[in-house]
């Protein structure tokens, strides 16, 4: 029963810290680039750096590279100390680190290259999905291993938040990424249309909840008391906070689909549960802020605390705004506008960004056994970063509300839309976009200062890779001290983290099995509409181009049942129209106009041809990127049969001869379109080019119901 000597693995923490800072800068910079693209379309530098492909790169870089590495940095540092134990396996630690960086690199290559599933925050294609799964499991094993061999009986509340993160994210990822490969970098999801949408946003929202929130709450509960050097305001509250959050978070997802063709009851469900979330979220925020009760003098001097205070406040604002945005009547205005973008950036820049900065400023000097190179510079970083957040969000709130109102506004006299041309509502808010870019620049400058400051700090200090520590061994159960009670008999309880892991893996497996259900129930899915037919081979190829170019980042395909939308875009969308949409392409933002039924609104092949070549030629003032390469590149039809087969397997009624003659059918339709283009006066149109397929798709979207 002697004292055990061991050492904390600081090296892994160091690497994750460096990765956090580095990827942070990358993610912010990409963000700035796409922000400028929205003011200056010419900033879309060729097909690999166009907005549609870079926007997912930005979100992935910030969420999974910056915040992700931030989480791992914090967990690997705090967990070892909370458990008074080294990480369970150094090998796994390093596998986790390099594996995760590999995933990020894959993303950085595949997304600009146009390989994407188009599902937000789950864009990466199936091989990378598998890699993610493996790396994540490695992390989970390593973490639970550490928890089991811990030398402290009590599991500090932060550990609970970490557990929730690891387990839940695993399940979410598995459920949402069930897809059938067509080729190495192309797959179709097993869910279609409305169902796909529901799964995607169940995932999407919980990704925010369990990747951007719970782990960071854990970090808050560890680093805030440390930095402020005073105990958390109420430890009891933190425990209540955790359990209440865990039991109601999971169902808020559908609030991303209000007024869509998702059944009403599912929408209302999402709304109600989102509203309930205010209570636990604010419990956590108050617990954080009240910890600093009577220490505000410290806050005034210490940049670390400054960052954390703003972060927690931002968390409070975002978690109040979120439920508000889930109220149908508010959502009717905010959805598809920049309001949502502003909302998420309060969370991303404020909560995640500033908390990460705070932790880095606290951690690096300690790991390098020195003091921060320049507190003054850190304070400047705080102020410029804070200014950046304001300059970023305020204009976007303005832009969002303004544009939302313009979309809905009718001319009282004529009874027609006041802004009949969608483009007007865009050009009006471009100044706001410009200001947002300025805000972003401030934020990056701040991050740059931090990088320099931390670099100098590291240079000045001496890093200890393995920090010696000692702690008495944890002997069986010491908890329920009943006189004469035999501690051995409680042993199984001590082991029950293992039980816990087993249970969760079972959960995950069953979850995975349940995945297969929809494949068989596919036909009984949604009220089917006889008029709705599967896409032709050419249209399917066009659809995949639409996905490749990331059109859904700016264009929605879901007409909500409002007079203003029906007036502008045509009859509102029905669930039955989407049964063959794999993946669904409803989108979540309308930087450009709604495209469902665009085929009935703009049935001219020529218009689309010219518009894609150079949007300004048809729509002066448009900020849409040009897509000249679609006119140059040949359409690759190699996989078309495979694609149809997969679709058939998933229940799309393609006949076998259709599949057999796919190429012929495709060719025929292409020629047909080219013929129309020729007589419309576009002699250079060539049936083998990608543009033809895209036009075919655009003209088809949402038109079946009219036939």
């Amino acid at each position, binding site marked *: *029963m*002697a*004292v055990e000597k061991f050492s904390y693995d600081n090296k892994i923490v160091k690497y994750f810290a460096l990765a956090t800072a580095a990827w942070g800068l990358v993610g912010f910079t990409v963000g700035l680039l796409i922000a400028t693209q929205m003011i200056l379309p010419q900033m879309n530098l060729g097909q690999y750096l166009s907005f549609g492909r870079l926007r997912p790169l930005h979100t992935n870089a910030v969420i999974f590279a910056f915040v992700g590495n931030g989480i791992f940095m914090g967990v690997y540092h705090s967990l070892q100390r909370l458990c008074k134990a080294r990480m369970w396996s150094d090998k796994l630690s390093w596998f986790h680190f390099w594996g995760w960086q590999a995933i990020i690199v894959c993303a950085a290559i595949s997304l600009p290259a146009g390989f994407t599933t188009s599902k937000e925050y789950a864009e990466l294609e199936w091989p990378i999905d598998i890699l993610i799964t493996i790396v994540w499991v490695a992390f989970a094993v390593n973490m639970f291993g550490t928890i089991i061999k811990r030398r402290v*009986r009590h599991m500090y509340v932060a550990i609970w938040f970490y557990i929730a993160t690891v387990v839940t994210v695993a399940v979410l990822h598995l459920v949402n990424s069930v897809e059938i490969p067509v080729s190495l970098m192309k797959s179709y999801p097993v869910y279609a249309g409305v169902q796909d949408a529901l799964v995607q946003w169940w995932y999407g929202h919980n990704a925010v909840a369990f990747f951007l929130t719970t782990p960071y709450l854990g970090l808050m509960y560890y680093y805030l008391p440390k930095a402020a050097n005073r105990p958390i305001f109420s430890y009891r509250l933190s425990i209540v906070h955790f*359990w209440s959050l865990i*039991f*109601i978070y999971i*169902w808020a997802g559908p609030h991303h689909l209000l007024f869509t063709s998702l*059944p*009403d*009851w*599912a929408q*209302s*469900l999402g709304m*109600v*549960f989102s509203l309930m979330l205010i209570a636990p979220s604010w419990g956590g925020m108050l617990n954080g802020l009240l910890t600093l009760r009577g220490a505000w003098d410290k806050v005034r001097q210490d940049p670390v605390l400054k960052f954390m205070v703003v972060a927690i406040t931002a968390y409070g604002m975002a978690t109040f705004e979120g439920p508000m945005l889930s109220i149908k009547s508010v959502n009717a205005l905010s959805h598809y506008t920049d309001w949502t973008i502003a909302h998420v950036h309060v969370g991303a820049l404020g909560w995640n960004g500033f908390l990460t900065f705070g932790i880095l400023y606290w951690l690096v000097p300690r790991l390098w056994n020195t003091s921060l190179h320049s507190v003054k510079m850190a304070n400047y970083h705080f102020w410029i970063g804070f200014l950046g957040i304001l300059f970023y969000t305020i204009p976007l709130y303005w832009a969002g509300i303004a544009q939302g109102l313009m979309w809905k506004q009718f001319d009282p006299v004529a009874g027609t839309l006041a802004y009949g041309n969608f483009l007007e509502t865009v050009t009006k808010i471009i100044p706001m976009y410009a200001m947002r870019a300025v805000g972003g620049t401030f934020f990056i400058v701040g991050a740059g200062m931090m990088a320099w400051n931390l670099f100098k700090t590291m240079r000045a200090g001496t890093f200890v890779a393995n920090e010696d520590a000692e702690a*008495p*061994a*944890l*002997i069986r159960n*010491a908890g*329920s*001290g*009943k*006189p*004469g*009670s*035999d*501690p051995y008999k409680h042993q199984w309880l001590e082991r029950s983290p293992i039980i816990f892991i087993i249970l969760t893996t079972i959960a995950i497996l069953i979850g995975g099995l349940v995945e297969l259900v929809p494949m068989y129930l596919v036909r009984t899915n949604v009220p089917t509409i006889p008029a709705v037919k599967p896409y032709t081979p050419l249209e399917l190829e066009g659809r995949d181009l639409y996905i490749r170019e990331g059109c859904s980042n700016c264009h929605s395909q879901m007409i909500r049942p409002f007079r203003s939308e029906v007036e502008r875009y045509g009859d509102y969308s029905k669930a039955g129209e989407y049964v063959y949409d794999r993946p669904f392409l409803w989108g979540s933002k309308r930087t450009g106009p709604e495209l469902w039924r665009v085929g009935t609104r703009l049935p001219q092949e020529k218009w689309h041809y010219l518009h894609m070549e150079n949007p300004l030629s048809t729509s002066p003032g448009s900020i849409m990127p040009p897509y000249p390469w679609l006119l140059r590149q040949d359409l690759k039809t190699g996989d078309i049969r495979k694609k149809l087969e997969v679709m058939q397997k998933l229940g799309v009624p393609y006949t076998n001869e259709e599949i057999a003659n796919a190429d012929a059918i495709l060719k025929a339709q292409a020629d047909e379109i080219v013929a129309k283009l020729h007589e419309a006066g576009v002699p250079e149109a060539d049936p083998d080019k990608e543009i033809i397929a895209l036009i075919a798709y655009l003209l088809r979207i949402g038109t079946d119901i009219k036939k």
Partner: protein
Amino acid sequence: MTIISSTQSSELGHDHADPACFHCGEPCRDLVESDGKAFCCMGCQSVYHLLNQNQLGKYYSLDAAPGARPGESGRRDRFAYLDDPAVQEQVLDFHDGTHAIVTFRIPTMHCVACIWLLENLYKLEPAVSRSQVNFPRKELLIHFDESMMSLRQLVGFLSGIGYEPKLSLESLEKSRAVHPNRSLYIKLGVAGFCFANIMLLSFPGYFGLTHAQNPGFMRAFTWLSVALSLPVLFYGANDYLAAAIVAVRRRVVTIDLPIAIGIVALYAHSLFEILSESGAGYLDSFTGLIFFLLLGRIFQQKTYDALSFDRDYTSYFPVNVMRMSADGSEQSIPLNRLEVGDRMVVRHHELVPADAVLESEAAEIDYSFVTGESDPALRTAGDLVYAGGRHLGEAGTYRTVNPVSRSHLTQLWNNPIFEKAESRDLASLTNRMSKKFTIVVIATATVATTWWLRTDPAMALRVFASVLIIACPCALALAAPFTLGTAMRLFERRRCFVKNAAVVEALARVDTIVFDKTGTLTADKHAQVEWHGELTDADRGMVKALTRHSTHPLSVRLTDTLGALPAPRATTFNELPGLGLEATVDGHRLRVGSAAWTEAPDDALSPHPTVHVAIDGLWRGCAVLRAALRPGLPELVGQLKQKSRLCLLSGDTDRQATELRDLFGEDVEFRFQQSPQDKLAFVRQLQDEGRRVLMIGDGLNDAGALRQSDVGIAVSDDLSAFSPACDAILAGDQLPMLTRILAFSSTAMRIIVASFVISFLYNVIGIGVAVQGLLEPWIAAVLMPISSITVVSFTVLATRMLGHRHGFVVLKS
């Protein structure tokens, strides 16, 4: 419980002239210097060195002067009785010859540094493998190696570094209970989980997903709900169902009965609907109701880890006693082994554990503990000394004449009132109300049903169900817990700790208040001192030089009042029991103590405890110490007299009678020289007159009266110290709050009644509609949780609001 912040503990030093001890912060009465740091005694200094040698210097950086004086009056064999296997069995949580686990209560732990040091014991003592603190309970759990270190050595080691475990007779006789709330929390967790998921499954129904529209879904959802509801019914709600069954058996109506009926009706009806596919049932409201009820239950049982409300003499009496065997050798034995005729050795400041005859020639006995009499009495050989008296002066030998349990003081606990269990709950307002309520509801239900049976049998069942469901008095069940629970929390803000919610209810009905004088109205620490004769400050300085070396109660009080006076060094110090102190200061021969000791003139005698001073054989003057009344008493008495009848009891002589008369006025009944039994009897007599008595006392001598009274409040100046069995503990400086506490208790009851009215109206209307069959049962089911939430929020908000108005605000600690 508060962790003393560094600032506070350093202030501790300021009001004394002596420098504060670097280790314990106490003023250094006789200074020990080391590494340029001041220490008040060798003990503190040696602990400091011990910690430094073991690289535990951080201890002093975590908090200023965090230490506690290492165990005084420490004779090495003091803990010998811990070698007794029988004792070890009782003290140890677990042991197998090598690995042993023990949990100690350590009153001296008070700050961050304490936690840190106590959890790093293994660095000091290799035999200790790990140690874990539970600060709220001031408990230390230790794993150690029996083969390397005995329990006795461990305890010795701990007291050696100033953390002496509190080992009372109690710790041998009573067994530590596991946290009572555990199962309740699990129940709440299960109910919460099921509630949340069932809500999820039933919302679609409310949001327009109909059975016709999508039978598959509805069926799946409802059956999932049924599955989820089972644990709530059979696990979550079993307390209520069980209690109801008991009530039926006992032929009494408690609040549990109507609740149980409501629960069952609700559940049965839901199942019926689901089975008959006539609806989705109301399992969501059912689980929600249980969830709220459990929440109320937890809210109501606020526990104060550091305090205990049911202590008897066993927690005061030492756990062991030194028995002197025939050959004159002493051995330490557990107290409960002491037999009549045993000769025992009692040391300075130890309690005489059993009625015994003094054998040494003289000893002073401080009975303040038993009688409240504040100044020590001199006893000589052959005198009978009662159990509970504190032996002062050098060790004396006694011969036991009564076993511990039959002794003068302790037989108080043989009184039947200590046997009978609390019977308050049944009498409580909630239950009295629910009796009527239940009868009315059942009656209405049956009448309505029979009526419908004649007209429209199909409606009968629905009506019956609706009436029972809506009448389910969750509001009643929630109003009391949440109101009283909130009240308890408000009281806590003013350092008034109430045993349970029922006490608040009892407080509201008090009409007679009985005070114990000593310690309650008067407090030694407020002692005033009057000097007579011609003594210069220099002389008093010399007096202090003596008194500060003595632990005699009068010396200690005098030293405190002399506070800042510089004191020269005293040599050839000598203390004689019953007489006083003697020493040489600056070449003068000083005598401080009794009149006889200093040949005081007769005119200098006073009824109050007096310390006489003689310098070089000449009486020079005396200090008269009188226990002063607590501040704020006149106002308090004035206010209390308006509402209730007051009485005053006192264990000691009536010397302060006149002073108290002025305070209380003529109409208040006084009784002096009351034995513990007398006090008990007096309270009972009042109760026989039909009065509801609030007893306010402090000492063990009040224990009987405190227990007998309807509410017993123990006043305590040091909350971490033990207080006798009682219903509430009130911090001494908060005594003036008593009026408000009483007033607010009745306010709380009014709030409960108000919420009864609300839920009653709600029910009347509900039932009114239900009996006519107009009310769809699912609407009833939705209305029910709404009423619960209304009641809860109303009671909590109202109580907090009024509480704030009554001045129950957080105190700056």
